[in-house]
């Protein structure tokens, strides 16, 4: 988060805003400690029902979308690391991405990283029926979790994971809610799930340049 603050301080004079949304079923209780560690003056929101994940069909964090002054998407969701803390795991260079954002903040829609409508439509894939069903199962699980019925939420989280197996959000959020019981409840863990990927990358490859 201090990384995003640095970038925001640099670019806020260019009609540029950052909205950072915590995908946390536990709400402020879980997310706040991360926010208050540093003084932030960009917008940080709490999304207890993973609404943004559903609306933009996201499967992972950190993920970002670029939206222009007219409220239109100019880059679809893609992995968005602000620093190289986990570079050993995913191999993505943060500075390439931050430079692309700088280019956009300066040049707006004329930026070389702003995609044409045709390319956007090609990159934005329609949400599958199963993903909509998965989102409903996940949301019902969250409703039960919020009522303190954590155990009874688990079958719904499992169903969401089955219907949308690419979603790390559905896996990792559900495990986090089960705490130390997670491995027992879900009969898996992060390491095992990463292994299942085989040669598939953890994040969908980022295609920064126009094609």
């Amino acid at each position, binding site marked *: 988060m201090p990384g995003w603050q640095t970038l925001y301080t640099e670019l806020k004079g260019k009609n540029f*805003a*950052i909205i950072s*949304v915590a*995908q946390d079923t536990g709400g402020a209780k879980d997310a706040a400690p991360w926010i208050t560690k540093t003084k932030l003056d960009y917008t940080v929101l709490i999304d207890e029902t993973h609404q943004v994940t559903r609306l*933009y069909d996201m499967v992972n964090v950190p993920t970002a979308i670029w939206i222009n002054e007219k409220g239109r998407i100019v880059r679809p969701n893609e992995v968005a690391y602000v620093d190289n803390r986990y570079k050993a795991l995913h191999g993505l260079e943060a500075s390439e991405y931050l430079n692309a954002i700088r280019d956009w903040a300066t040049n707006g829609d004329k930026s070389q990283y702003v995609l044409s409508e045709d390319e956007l439509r090609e990159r934005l894939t329609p949400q599958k029926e199963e993903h*909509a069903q998965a989102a409903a199962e996940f*949301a019902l699980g969250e409703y039960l979790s919020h009522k303190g019925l954590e155990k009874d939420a688990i079958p719904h989280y499992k169903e969401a994971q089955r219907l949308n197996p690419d979603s790390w959000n559905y896996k990792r959020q559900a495990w986090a809610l089960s705490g130390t019981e997670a491995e027992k409840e879900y009969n898996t863990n992060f390491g095992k799930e990463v292994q299942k990927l085989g040669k598939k990358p953890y994040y969908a490859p980022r295609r920064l340049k126009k094609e």
Partner: protein
Amino acid sequence: MWKQSSAISVLLFFLIAGITAFAETKSLTVIYDEKPTAVKAMLTETKDVWITMKDLTRATRFVVKPQGVCRDELCFPLPKAQKSNFIKKQGSVQWFNLSEFARLVQQPVAFNEQHTTWYFGARAQAQNAHLESLEAPNFTLPDVQGKKHSLSDFRGKKVLLVTWASW
């Protein structure tokens, strides 16, 4: 005499039918557009949820009109031949099959019978509306102090929308 007894049996029939219908109703929580509403519902064997027209509007803001099931400018016409799958009258009460309607509009439904909770989710088709318009779907969420912010408040600025999580 004949007339009277048949009238009584007709009355009895309705009375029993009424009682049976009443005995079948359950208190359910219907979650629609993320908003939970307590309703009286009839549950079929296949777990279809029938609710009263009044509750339909209360829980979903949809209203049954001659042209279809409508909310704001949106109207879903009901297939004429299958109207009885959607609407039935029992005594003076009209019931609406919310599950059949969900199938018609291709809306996902998840339920937990133990906790009598039915979740009607967002339709994939509605979710995909932005693929054509490329307009970023709006949302309203609180910050850590509880103050609400909408994406649309940022119109006129370039917005980097980033998601993260504590987990």
